[in-house]
């Protein structure tokens, strides 16, 4: 996916600011009372895959919504701290401005436009891109990369299977040719074999040079995909470190993440 659109323009800026995301002491609350995030510090270096793990209610989704500028949709707001995207303050940006800066977004629960066709879903993803020629090429490229979507480009997206819908959500996020893609629970509700397929796609996206911020409950999958991971607990970062180290630490998996340990055991035995 690299090479198309804005990549080159942004490369220079990236050199200066090798951090795609930098968040310092971030506090977020809903309706001014419910504190969802309480002082999160987090960095996503350009070109890396960073994972956020944690149990339900730990603040992972709130964090991603903050990154995407979507807090306003359900009464959330940043009450303290700073958030920068490629060195620019981004805490007050509208969602579409964040997309234009180069952030592709895959929200929790896939959230495809089920009444639009597959192709129209992708067109919405590219709505912020001015260069129509490049958009067209990128779309065709994605149709070859995701043949299932190519075959069903004119069918209504609501009729796709769960895995296909997740692919569509990812492809739609890629249509803006992002430098950074954020994914919220991409494996949620998918059969293990499909989840592995999605993991492969995410790994390919990263190989193509796109930075990835991944929120996952499936700790084994997230740690195997990522370079660095943060573990959220009660709205704070409880632990962080290179994914390799966290993966080796069985206590962490059991303490913070529950489940997933048997799979991670077999993984660490294999590796």
């Amino acid at each position, binding site marked *: 996916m690299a090479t198309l659109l804005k990549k080159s323009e942004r490369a220079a800026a990236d050199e200066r600011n090798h951090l795609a995301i930098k968040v310092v002491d971030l506090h977020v609350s809903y309706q001014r009372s419910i504190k969802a995030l309480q002082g999160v510090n987090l960095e996503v270096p350009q070109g890396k895959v960073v994972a956020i793990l944690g149990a339900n209610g730990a603040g992972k989704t709130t964090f991603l919504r903050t990154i*995407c500028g*979507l807090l*306003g*949709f*359900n*009464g959330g707001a940043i009450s303290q701290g700073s958030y920068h995207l490629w060195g620019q303050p981004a805490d007050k940006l*509208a*969602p*579409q401005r964040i*997309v*234009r800066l180069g952030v592709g*977004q895959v*929200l929790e629960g896939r*959230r495809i*436009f*089920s*009444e*639009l*066709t597959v192709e*129209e879903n992708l*067109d*919405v*993803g590219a*709505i*912020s*891109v001015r260069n129509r020629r490049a958009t067209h090429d990128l779309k065709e490229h994605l149709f070859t990369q995701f043949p299932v979507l190519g075959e069903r480009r004119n*069918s*209504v*997206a*609501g*009729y*796709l*299977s769960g895995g296909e819908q997740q692919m569509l959500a990812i492809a*739609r*996020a890629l249509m*803006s040719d992002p430098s950074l893609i954020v994914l919220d629970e991409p494996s949620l509700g998918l059969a293990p074999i499909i989840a592995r397929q999605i993991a492969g796609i995410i790994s390919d996206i990263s190989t193509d040079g796109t930075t990835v911020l991944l929120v996952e409950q499936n700790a084994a999958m997230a740690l195997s995909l990522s370079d660095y991971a943060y573990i959220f607990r009660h709205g704070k970062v409880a632990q962080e470190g290179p994914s390799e180290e966290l993966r080796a630490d069985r206590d962490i998996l059991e303490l913070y993440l529950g489940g997933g340990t048997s799979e991670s055991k077999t993984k660490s035995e294999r590796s």
Partner: protein
Amino acid sequence: MTGPSTKARQIAVALWLLVSLFVLALISVLADGNDGLEKFLQFVVGGLALGSIYSILALGFVVIYKATGVFNLAQGSLVLLGTYVLYQFKEEYDLPFGLALLFALVLMAGVGVLIERVVMRKMLGKPVFSAIMVTLALLIIIDQIVRSIWSEPGYVLNLPWSSGKVDIGDVTIRHIDFWAVGSAMVLLVAFFLFFERTRVGLGMRATALDAEVASAQGVRIGVSYAMSWAVAAVVATVAGMILTVRTGGGALTPAVGYVALRAFPAMILGGLDSTGGAVAGGLIIGLAEVLVDGYLDYDWLGERFETVVPYLLLLPIMLWRPHGLFGTKTVERS
């Protein structure tokens, strides 16, 4: 954009309409002989013209519903305001018709954007029911504003084609009827092209389906909302103009706003979120009204029975297809 099953259904509905019309024609010929056919065709012309006006009125509701999910009760007041604004440019400032219409449409688009930005934008994220109540307040406020600004009786809107007519055989077609049908068709095609072929249109559809996700994909949802109100106000002005000239001979009356309410059944019949459905619903209701008015004159039904007909049609169709003839059910893989 619709799946194959929706297409098939639309064709089926269209066929059903044509067959019903044909059967009606046959009955009228059998009943009255050759004169019957001419009488019937005359009614069909009247029905199509009236139906086209309903269609245009319904399109105004549909565009806002499609983009914002709000059923805009103030649409009637936009019809009213648009008509008086056109009158102001045409008769008070004495501009040529084309220029007056252009100015009126541009001004009304601005009014639409203004209402959206100043009032309706604040209602985003609030319960839809509250937003609908706000549009009810707007209806009453705008209505009163119009009555205050244009407070004298006897305003008349004279359009170049107000009173002309053409005879084809024994069937008479008024110029205004051509305008009604023509405007409805042009608007239908324009709506289709706009929603299906342009980015702004696609953005509006995406916004309507899921505003949060749309904005997360880079859609400027504020533009979508403002645009839908602008389009609704423009469409309302066209409807008000044709309505005033066709039913009142150009005499302006504040009641023109309430005629918009008669487009409700048309729009609900066709499906609240379907532009094609709005036009089809309008034509069905218009034809039904005129045909009933023409053929049924039994006293025991009461006077102006035809005004009840839209609702008589609405009932069984709603029971059979709660989303309207062309409305979309939420598409979900089962």
